[in-house]
């Protein structure tokens, strides 16, 4: 048995989504374990390139952006390198994402509107690397716009809202989804979210280009004036659009505390079905299979067990944090951070800590 551990099938079991018993293998050190045994996709010196372009958000790339890089890598032959162009700052590497070469252009930011500069920068890189295909996430936060500008500019074929692709074709929804249409792989490919499986069995070389390596980007005349983002009233934002959600379940006794926490964090308020059924929250706050589907960057689940029906509604949330007094609650498996403790106590402490930190404008003790 190739040296692997023998496990007692009766050891730890858990109810899976369909009610079947499922053996739970405790995660040891998943991250390092996964990357350690993944081989590099190719060791050849690239003779041609695939390019992926995306804006970063707060120093990292979201799943949709990583799908563009994964597509570039999966469809690349051994002699083809993957160049990831990141508009905005980037912390960490894109080795695991599958990029062989990474060009970070920190002068850009998805929060500012400077399409002509961005286009000039990307076109310069296209000129130096002559990528066979260029992949972008077809997202509403800048990449979809940039990709269409690029498509119009390079004057070659472009496909948008691509829902399916492989080495030979891309497919899109035709006539609002009534039918589907396919075409040979065009040069510019804008991917719908979910068109690529992020689970790749290889890594990229991940070398980061330093400024000296980058071609000089010409300055272009800007026609647009960015007048900035409007102040938004977080409480007024529809839950589906909110970027930060604090959500309460059966374990929340005091709704006022949860609302106060949401207020200090600038978050919208959501709820589980049980909490809604109890009358603690209005029906339109319900998140899950029979409620709303949310896409927040941060989702704090307070006193929510994490039933599958609830998890369905938060599958696209980037960072999930749970506050629960039961470490065995299924939410702990979904959450990136689980705080074990009484909901009320932790919420109160967090509010106090936030206010204190705001008063001092710093967080002592933070790493």
């Amino acid at each position, binding site marked *: 048995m*190739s040296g692997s551990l023998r496990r007692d099938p009766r050891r730890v079991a858990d109810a899976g989504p369909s009610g079947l018993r499922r053996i739970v293998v405790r995660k040891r050190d998943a991250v390092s374990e996964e990357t350690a045994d993944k081989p590099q996709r190719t060791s050849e010196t690239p003779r041609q390139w695939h390019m992926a372009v995306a804006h970063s958000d707060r120093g990292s790339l979201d799943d949709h952006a990583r799908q563009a890089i994964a597509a570039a890598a999966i469809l690349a032959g051994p002699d083809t390198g993957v160049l990831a162009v990141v508009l905005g700052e980037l912390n960490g590497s894109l080795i695991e994402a599958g990029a062989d070469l990474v060009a970070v252009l920190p002068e850009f930011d998805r929060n500012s509107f400077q399409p002509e500069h961005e286009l000039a920068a990307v076109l310069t890189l296209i000129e130096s690397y002559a990528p066979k295909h260029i992949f972008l996430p077809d997202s509403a936060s800048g990449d979809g716009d940039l990709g269409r500008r690029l498509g119009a500019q390079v004057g070659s074929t472009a496909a948008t809202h691509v829902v399916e692709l492989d080495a030979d074709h891309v497919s899109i929804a035709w006539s609002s989804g009534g039918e589907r249409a396919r075409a040979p792989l065009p040069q510019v490919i804008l991917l719908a979210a979910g068109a690529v499986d992020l689970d790749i069995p290889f890594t990229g070389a991940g070398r980061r280009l330093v400024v000296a390596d980058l071609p000089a980007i010409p300055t272009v005349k800007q026609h647009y004036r960015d007048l900035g983002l409007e102040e938004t009233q977080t409480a007024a934002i529809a839950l589906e659009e909110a970027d930060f959600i604090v959500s309460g379940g059966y374990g929340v006794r005091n709704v006022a505390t949860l609302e106060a926490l949401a207020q200090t964090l600038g978050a919208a308020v959501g709820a589980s079905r049980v909490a809604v059924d109890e009358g603690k929250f209005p029906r339109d706050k319900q998140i899950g299979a029979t409620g709303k589907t949310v896409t927040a960057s941060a989702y704090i689940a307070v006193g929510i067990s994490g039933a599958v029906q609830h998890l369905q509604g938060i599958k696209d949330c980037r960072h999930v944090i749970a506050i629960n007094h039961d470490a065995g609650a299924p939410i702990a498996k979904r959450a990136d951070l689980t705080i074990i403790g009484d909901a009320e106590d932790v919420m109160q402490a967090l509010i106090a800590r936030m206010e204190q930190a705001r008063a001092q404008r710093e967080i002592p003790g933070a790493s």
Partner: protein
Amino acid sequence: MSERLSVAVLISAGQHPVSRAPRACRGDAVAMALGRKLAGDSLRVVHAGDPKSPALNDYHALGASRIEVVAVPDGQDAIGPLAAKLLKADVILTGSRAEQGEGSGLLPYLLAHALRRPVIADVLGVWIEKGEAQVRQFQPKGRRRRVAAPVPLVLSVHPLASCELTYAYARLKSGRIELASVVAQPRQAIRPHWTLEPASQRPVPLKARDTKDGHARMLGYIQSQAKGGAVVFEGSSVDKAQILLTYLRDHRLVEL
């Protein structure tokens, strides 16, 4: 001010997604309403395609008393003829994507490129002052941005732009179609060659070929099943709050 500006809106033949009944494309109707706010009755309403398309009636009923149609045979590129037709328009409004066919949302970009004009997408509202258009732009996560650009320009309107759409049968009856002559144009953009395929199955996500052996694959499945992040048991509520806050700050989810 805006009276002296020439404003045009581009409308496409829409289709109900389920019944396939021809109708006004919802997003284009919103763009048309925004154009009426800007230019009143002087708004030009332009369509490229079949002048007999039943979808055009809907636009009459929604307020377009006159529709200029550039007759472009099905499957032929509309960018060239539209650009020629719209040379004099200061503000060109479009919807964000067509309901029939490809619906790529590329048209406003291709048109702007052909006319060498700026283009702003996801427009919720527009004000024109001293030769400059100020635009309120939709952004995800409840955010809105203000952007300005000089006239002439192309604006693609977001379907959430607030506007009033009123349907009147009398207008449907009195509406006129005006056939415009087409200047033969070289093809401007190369578009992919689409062929229809049955959409019976859900799209298959692109997946890397798995080189792992069966045992490793099985481990992979159960491990991802047990995926989970850090779990914090120890410490007082204050310590735990600090850990949570540190997490939020490290990922730049809160600003202090």
